[in-house]
């Protein structure tokens, strides 16, 4: 049935019958009625935003490093040259380690620090994820 409709004889004849044309001004009238579509704008992310969004990751990294290097548990024994690195690290930051030792010598300060750091960490993580996954 569809093939019958594809009647080349009739199709050729009909295509030779000219279509009606609008006035000569038609295209100009259409073009006058349109305004240019706004070109796609690529918004660059400001550097400050990159820096701000990296803060939680930097903080997390710092905490992990702090835990690893201040712990007696041998997390990093499998890494060759760990002792050498620790010695070097301690040499570079002796004042920091000395003050840390002083701080954590008090039980009150230690618990306060632990609570504060944990709360701060949880707060940062919460802020980070609520911003990332907010619809």
């Amino acid at each position, binding site marked *: *049935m*569809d093939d019958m409709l594809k009647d080349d004889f*009739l199709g050729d004849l009909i295509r030779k019958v000219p279509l009606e044309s609008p006035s000569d001004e038609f295209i100009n009238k259409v*073009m006058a009625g349109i305004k240019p*579509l706004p070109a796609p704008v690529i918004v660059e992310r400001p550097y400050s935003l990159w820096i701000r969004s990296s803060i939680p990751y930097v903080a997390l990294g710092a905490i992990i490093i702090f835990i690893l290097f201040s712990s007696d548990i041998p997390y990093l024994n499998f890494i060759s040259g760990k002792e050498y690195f620790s010695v070097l690290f301690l040499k570079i930051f002796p004042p920091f380690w000395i003050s840390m030792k002083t701080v954590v010598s008090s039980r009150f300060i230690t618990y306060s620090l632990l609570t504060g750091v944990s709360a701060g960490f949880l707060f940062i993580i919460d802020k980070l994820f609520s911003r990332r996954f907010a619809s």
Partner: protein
Amino acid sequence: MKYQDDNFYIEKVLNGDSSAYAALVAKHKNLVFSIALKILNNREDAEEIAQDAFVKAYHSLKSFEKKSKFSTWLYRIVYNAAISRTRKRSLDTIPMDNYVIHNYSVEDIRPGVDEVDKNEQQVLLAKAMKNLSDEDNLLITLFYHSNNSIEDISGITGLSSSNVKVRLHRIRKKLYDDMSAMIAVQLN
């Protein structure tokens, strides 16, 4: 004038080159205007509706998903706009059962049409097309002039595919009958 594929101009327009739309208008203006004219029967109204359809299509170009041809999408816009203008209901649907589709061969259906030369055939066809209703004229134009498929025409007009087929068969038969009758009159 030789035109590029519609998508070529669409991409240019979407990238901010609105002047590329003029080529799309030039390419489709005659058929868009013809669709509007066949529905409205008034040149001024048809031109206004065709113009509005092009402007509307331009502003909706970002939402055009390229699932169908641009031309089909555009014809549907102008068809709906013209129908709204006339406040005319969509084309009457004809139940399949009302028309028996015979397996006419081309020779059966156009006796005598081959006996006249091509130019004469064209004149006869133009006359026969004037005897068709506006709706039938629109369907035959969409099918044979712009090579729309049955599904495309169904999408443009809102008729079911089977209805479009039935109507096209009936129109085709009527055109051949009218042309044969005119030839018979001429020969007598």
